[in-house]
């Protein structure tokens, strides 16, 4: 450091002191307004992308239908399996459809709303992230709304159809609690997947080509959850319960609705934890995002 004035010089590796100041600079009121600003910016940018897409109407219809058909093949594969077996991992077709539909719908919602965060690495590499940083709107909202693609509704539609089929087929006593479990599961599941998307996107601030790792967890996790936990090894089930808590998306709540035992010896109330897990995941994802953005702003790459 050439300059001797203590006022002008800050240590090169920003200390924890500066960091805590940065956090203190966001009192609760400002955090709330950041949230509303973010949602507002998200809405505006998503609307622009929808209008952009609509300039190629035929292409939009084609890709939406394609997205529907391609994801439908997933479930058709399961249907084909059931022409040869009566149960998969001890589960009937209807039960599998319930699991599948819940996972696919949650994933589809998260993908629609924040799936674009997986493109962050590209924006970092070509420098276009900078153009977002000079706008008066939260960067996460801008990145999440980037290339907002309504065609992803194709996947959600397919998920909801399979879920509907599953709900109509399974033999469950539809008590009020069981009825409430379904929307709770879908919303919490979408939030958990959204958190994974955002955390994965944050990781791309450091490793710009990490989109594949992110895909393995998001798309891979979605595929995993479409089957009952009994078909997987216990260690894997443990991993998706406690490490990347994807099991809370559908397995734990759905198995409680179906009155099935969870392969791990967990207390019953675990089935009602998804909202808590979802909020926790989102909070961690936001911390990761902030750390990533801070790192980008200190390294520029």
């Amino acid at each position, binding site marked *: 450091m050439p300059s001797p004035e203590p*006022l*002008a*010089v800050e240590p090169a590796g920003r200390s924890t002191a500066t960091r805590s100041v940065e956090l203190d600079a966001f009192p609760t009121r400002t955090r709330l307004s950041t949230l509303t600003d973010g949602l507002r910016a998200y809405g505006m940018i998503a609307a*622009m992308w929808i209008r952009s897409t609509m300039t190629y109407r035929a292409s939009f219809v084609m890709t939406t239908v394609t997205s529907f058909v391609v994801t439908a093949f997933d479930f058709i594969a399961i249907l084909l399996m059931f022409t040869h077996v009566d149960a998969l991992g001890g589960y009937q077709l209807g039960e599998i459809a319930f699991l599948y539909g819940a996972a696919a719908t949650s994933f589809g919602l998260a993908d629609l709303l924040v799936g674009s965060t997986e493109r962050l690495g590209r924006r970092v590499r070509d420098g276009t992230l*900078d153009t977002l940083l000079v706008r008066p709107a939260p960067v996460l909202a801008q990145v999440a709304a980037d290339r907002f693609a309504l065609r992803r509704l194709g996947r959600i539609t397919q998920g909801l159809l399979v879920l509907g089929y599953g709900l109509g087929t399974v033999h469950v006593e539809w008590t009020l609690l069981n009825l409430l479990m379904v929307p709770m599961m879908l919303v919490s599941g979408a939030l958990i997947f959204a958190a994974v998307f955002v955390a994965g996107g944050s990781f791309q601030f450091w490793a710009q080509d990490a989109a594949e790792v992110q895909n393995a967890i998001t798309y891979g996790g979605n595929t995993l959850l479409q089957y009952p936990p009994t078909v997987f090894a216990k260690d894997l089930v443990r991993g998706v319960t406690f490490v990347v808590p994807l099991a809370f998306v559908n397995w734990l709540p759905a198995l409680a609705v179906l009155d099935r035992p969870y392969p791990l010896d967990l207390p019953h109330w675990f089935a009602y934890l998804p909202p808590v897990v979802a909020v926790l995941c989102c909070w961690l994802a936001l911390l990761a995002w902030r750390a990533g953005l801070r790192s980008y*702003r200190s390294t520029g790459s």
Partner: protein
Amino acid sequence: MEAFIELDGVEKVFDVRRRAGLLRREKSQVRAVDGLSFTVARGEMVGYIGPNGAGKSTTIKMLTGILTPSGGRLRVAGIDPARERTRLARRIGVVFGQRTTLWWDLPLKDSYRLMHRMYRIPDQRFRENLERCVELLDLGELLEVPVRQLSLGQRMRGDIAAALLHDPEVLYLDEPTIGLDVISKAKVRDFLRDLNADRGTTVLLTTHDLTDIEQLCRRVMVIDHGRLMYDGALAGLHEVGESERTLIVDLERELPPVVIDLARTVRVEGPRQWLAFPASQSAAPLVSALAARYPVMDLSLREPDIEAVIAKMYAGRSGQ
């Protein structure tokens, strides 16, 4: 004058990891900006030049709050950009020459409508500013055209308008005339000059084109290796750099090298000769002297480029 942009010993150090062997990585530090201090008053129009990798973009990124300085003090309109990036964003305009902020598939006016809402510009203000930009930047016919169909020059004018709709107090332009044809360049320059004169908008522009600076900026700052090498008038820069302009003369026929007081002949190729003369000097007396004594068919003038000026600056300095 009130200092609007203030830098005091600003530094930006990057850690660079280089592969040194199969797994081992060497860490080294690059000082992209190394103790930069200057102030810009409100309403000034400053050219910020330097060779590639000199630290120009890094400076602009710190001024806009994209990058956090590693050291020193930096204020724009009294705001620390790194800490209050979004608050500052409402008061500044940025045009990145190579990266458009316009919406590719939508008509130009839709991008402006987004700015209107995102920056919460009052309706009346927005209408006035848009009208003004449309008139001065000649955008009337383009508002309904999808951005992907615009030429480079049209898009640049569109981008400049987009950066000004919210009445920024300072406008940063990164290579605003790069790749533009002569007419578009002239339009952009005229517009910027008016903007600065009428509205008092502070303008900081980086460029490779010395003509931009010549026509727009009374003050120029040269940066190299992250340090301020020169800060003053453009004419002074030519003196410091002892740079030369070149007059290219086409004579009627091949002749021995021209001998004339005001310039020296540096190259002869058939009937064409290259005459170098100090950049701080007018070309007019040279041209008239030349025309009086030689059979001149055609003339053209080549300005020194920034790289050459800076190279000379170095040569001059180490020679002393």
